[in-house]
């Protein structure tokens, strides 16, 4: 009994540092997030309970629907490229016997750069006059685009930056998964007369199905939180064409001083992302078994 108590005290002594940090910066903010969205507060007086008012404020805002539409479109477009290209790249890389180390290094390089650096670099690339993209188009003889300044291309421009700096993660994870596929499966498929694409379809994809699903969920959750791209590239413009949910949340809190509305929007985002997180959790459990 005595010894048990001592053991527990020692254990909690070891735990206390981490416990304090988790309590202050993970668990408490979680609770506070819920409180925040049902309160009105000016940080001087006691906060008052306002029921669903914050949610109504957010929903009635003309930017609300647009922000969700932008976020979903952004995520959809980012996945279209960001999910498929890394898988194809990994399959191709997996076949190469040369330059592997170089290719892996290079594909992961953008992931290592600070996102702010990448975004500011692309801001220059998008410059209608001196930017790389329009100059490259000019060399081929195609008239330049206005990229970030036009509602047609602004969101896509953000997708390009975000995809460029994140492709490497998926590629290397898929590559690791591909290397664990037993080679007799391919040999058997080959004996059955399966061609290259059939082998990919019937062996590679089923064998990597779980990791693909896990990554899909992770990517959805990550891309739906998009913030830095609109913050640094467009400031939400043109005509609110690139206001995302996370950016709108930031604006409520830090531009309009309305933390209640920001909190309500954050809570909505959380509920949506939770769906994917739960899927992810179930999939990764399944994967480990």
């Amino acid at each position, binding site marked *: 009994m005595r010894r048990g108590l001592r053991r527990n005290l020692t254990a909690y002594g070891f735990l206390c540092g981490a416990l304090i940090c988790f309590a202050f910066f993970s668990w408490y903010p979680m609770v506070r997030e819920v409180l925040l969205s049902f309160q009105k507060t000016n940080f001087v007086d006691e906060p008052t309970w306002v029921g669903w008012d914050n949610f109504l404020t957010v929903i009635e805002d003309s930017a609300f629907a647009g922000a969700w539409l932008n976020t979903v479109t952004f995520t959809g477009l980012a996945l279209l490229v960001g999910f498929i290209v890394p898988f194809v790249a990994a399959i191709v890389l997996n076949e190469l016997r040369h330059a592997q180390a170089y290719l892996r290094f290079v*594909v992961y390089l953008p992931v290592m750069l600070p996102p702010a650096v990448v975004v500011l670099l692309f801001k*220059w*690339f998008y410059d209608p006059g001196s930017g790389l993209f329009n100059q490259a188009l000019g060399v081929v003889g195609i008239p330049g685009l206005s990229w970030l300044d036009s509602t047609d291309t602004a969101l896509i421009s953000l997708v390009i930056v975000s995809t460029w700096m994140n492709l490497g993660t998926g590629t290397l994870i898929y590559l690791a998964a591909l290397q664990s596929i037993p080679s007799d499966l391919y040999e058997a498929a080959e004996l059955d007369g399966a061609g290259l694409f059939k082998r*990919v379809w019937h062996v590679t994809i089923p064998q990597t199905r779980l990791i693909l699903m896990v990554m899909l969920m992770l990517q959805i959750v990550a891309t739906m939180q998009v913030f830095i791209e609109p913050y640094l590239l467009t400031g939400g413009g043109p005509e609110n064409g690139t206001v995302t949910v996370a950016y709108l949340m*930031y604006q409520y*809190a830090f531009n309009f001083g309305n933390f209640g509305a920001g909190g309500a929007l954050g809570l909505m985002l959380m509920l949506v992302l939770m769906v994917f997180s739960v899927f992810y959790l179930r999939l990764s459990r399944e994967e480990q078994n």
Partner: protein
Amino acid sequence: MPNVTVEPSPPATRAARGLESPSRARKRRSGRTTTREFRGVVSPHTLTTRRGRVLYWTVLILVVTSFTAAFVFPLYWMITGALKSPEELAQIPPTFFPTAFDFGVYAEAWELLDLGLFLRNTVLYAGGAWLLTLAFDVSAAYALSKLRPVLGKLVLGLMLATLMIPPMVILLPAYLTAKELPILGWDLLNTPWAIWLPAVANGFFVFLLKRFFDSIPRELIEAAQIDGASPFRILWSIVLPVSRPILGVVSILSVINVWKDFIWPLLVLPDQEKMSISVGIASLSAQLPQNVLLAALVIASIPTIVVFFIFQRSIMAGLTAGSLKG
């Protein structure tokens, strides 16, 4: 019966054919992969045919050029862009090589933005976060794995549950917490603690460390206990020395996380004197000539690229460990 074998002949080993990439060969020699011969979608036989080889080399060259164009060229354009004068930058068609190699712009960026200060700040934030993460998360994972206190499972569950919370959605309450710490009432804004303490609250690190500690044989610990070693002594002289690989992964990830982070330091370190390099450059970017800004971006990229060069193995290990978390 004629000896017609339908079994494919064992694929000649790649090393023997000189086709194996050095990294893979090293891996196999060190026994990290199974002894089974590796192959992908393409049949090894195809590669021995003339057509197969031509195709292989075409694909290889295509992949190498396109990867270089997509991922290296933008960086080249950034580095050389910094060396061009604003007039040269605006020129159409652009110059592929800068007309003059004047590295003075890098010095100008360094002085104008006070990059030395931003870099020192970032080193302070990342270094402190690294030390605190190692101290707190390692001891927590050790307690949960080896000392197994009452409610340990619940604590672990709560820590892992934080993996399900997207960081962006608790941004506002976390900011308010840093602004006025509950109970204590401290204002952590503009202090390194605002970066350090949240960096420790990382469920993924606890998960990685605990899983590794779980794999350390009990007998090793029990033998030390019989010898009368204290729990701290056991952690220090038995657990830590065998945990180097995972400590490496956690260290590198914790430093990179802080180094790359943008929105959190943007909120909690509003003083220009205290800004991290990313936030500092971004906040001043609008007032700078393009070439000076580019030089600043290059300087901000160098540390991460150097770190990547040196710690590539740990970084990649952390990446694949990351895909299996849950």
